[in-house]
């Protein structure tokens, strides 16, 4: 079963994770997320609002993915609703210090649009 639902809105890939991410599926979720990013994209939004549990294997996978994207000059943006259990866990493990965390999908989309504009300006 696919755990990631990907759609493209205004050229930005939005990958919605539909299940818990743990040691059982972290590998396949990572592969699905890597597939979701377009080659020339500046941003990958990973929407975790349906994910109830994210364990150390899942956290580790997201950190590696963020590193991998930054090599390609792309940004990983996580959507984790404020006040959620996941947001509390993210604070505890210091996730926001390493990866961009946004409370809603629309705030993540705005942040991506800003990044793209900045990149376009830099190219000119």
């Amino acid at each position, binding site marked *: *079963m*696919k*755990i990631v639902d990907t759609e493209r809105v205004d050229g930005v890939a939005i990958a919605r994770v*539909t*299940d*818990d991410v*743990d*040691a*059982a*599926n*972290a590998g396949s979720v990572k592969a699905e997320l890597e597939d979701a990013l377009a080659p020339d994209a500046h941003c990958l939004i990973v929407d975790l609002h349906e994910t*109830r*549990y994210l*364990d*150390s*294997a899942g*956290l*580790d*996978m997201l950190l590696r993915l963020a590193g991998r994207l930054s090599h390609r000059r792309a940004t990983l943006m996580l959507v984790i609703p404020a006040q959620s*259990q996941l947001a*509390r*866990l993210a604070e*505890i*493990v210091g996730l926001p210090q390493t990866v961009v965390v946004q409370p809603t999908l629309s705030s993540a989309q705005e942040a991506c649009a800003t990044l793209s504009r900045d990149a376009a300006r830099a190219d000119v």
Partner: protein
Amino acid sequence: MGHQEAQGGAQADVLGRHQRAPEEEPLNDAVDEARRDAILSITDSTLGFMSLQDMLSELLERIRGSLGADTAAVLLLDEDRGVLVPRAARGLEEEVRQGVQVPLARGFAGRVAAQKRPIVIEDLSRADVVNPILRQRGIRSMLGVPVQVEGRVIGVMHIGTLHLHRFGSDEVALLQLAADRAALAIDRAQISEQRAVTEVMQRSLLPDALPDVPGIRFSAKYLPAWSGVRVGGDWYDVFQLASGRLAMVIGDVVGRGVLAASVMGEIRTALRAYLIEGHDLASMVSLLNDLLVSTGRSRSATLSILELDLASGELEQPRGVRVGVSARQRYETRQYPFPAGSTLLLYTDGLIERRGESLDAGFERLIAAARVAADGTDSSFADHVYRSILEEASLEDDVALLAVESLPLEDVLQLTLDTQPEVLGGLRNTLERWLAAAGASENEIFDIALSASEAATNAIEHAYGARDASFTIRCEREGDDVTIVVSDEGRWRTLRAHGGGRGLMIMRSLMDLVEVNTDEEGTEVKMTKTLSRRA
């Protein structure tokens, strides 16, 4: 052949009404008796030890010899499709090899079966035949008789000659005698053949094992009907979806035998495929409906599908299920609570139906049996119900039953799990239910379930490469303290390939106390958290 031409050149002529000049074919009593003996000898006791195919081939060979025919063949009726299928032939092997199917009431064999009486074709070139092989083979005259068991046609036996021949009433009588003697053996062999195939199919379509889900106990029973080929229409299925939800199905396909079992296989596979692909219950039923309509399987199955959400303890069921009637239906679902201590029993109608008895009596018997089963601890729920209801009655129909028990959660929860990461989701679900019952808050449930999941992940990594390894997890509540102990037979790995100790960090952050003890026997992780008293 004056009077046949008078019928418009059509072939058929029923012997017995056929007028024949005695000098045309003098009946020799001695010859006739020898022919009769030849046929009887083969239809006797030795047949019981032969396969259907061998028996038919041998019988046809004897018939061909004793009646001086060039060809002899047996076609058996496929009831489900309403066609006659060549099963054995002598001098006409092509017919069997090409599998020509003759619809009932059409062609020569079809008319013999439909009219249930012998038919003679005196000149094939003038006759209406379905099967081109008969003409290609150069057959000129034919005699066919029905093969019947208790007035029910199960096939047709026919002989043919390459020269024009007028079959006499003695020949008709002899062929009919051979057909009658073979009929019972054919019927018995067909039933046991079909029953054997169906039973194998049936068994392959039932799940090999019921899922191992902590806090839920499954038991199931499938019993084929005791006689005949009525076996093959009922099935049950249980499987866990990647989401952790459990899907439970019970169904009954109208009809019997191999065809019913294969329809059942189609539905079972389609249903699993849709659910595994991630469709929710309502859209799965809608897809299944469209599939059944498009394959013309309408009105052929009754089924009940439920999903159990372990985390919320809720059952979900499609509303008003009439599947396979018209395409593009939308279905809604409804939820039922399924608290710990409840049992769900799914069954097919053979469990409660008895000939000459009202359905209410059957329900009452089932309710009484379920009450006893709920109190019993010595055997599974399904066994209990089956034993008290069916042990003494002979089964007229297949019975399938599936019991799903949500076990009461106690102060101590002890689980032994396989060292496979796939158990983690189910473990968290079970812990959530146990912790909610223990009065933990949402944050506490999250913290303890995730910490236990981390400790379990470590135990699973310890066993990496080992087959059939397991670990145990023990959850205990003492006053406001919840203690989780995860034990395995490996050593704690401080340098893990993944996470770099993040798992231990998470446990230490979320729990009040974490101890890791490793010795020769293995590793034990003991974690405690004090629940905040909610007013």
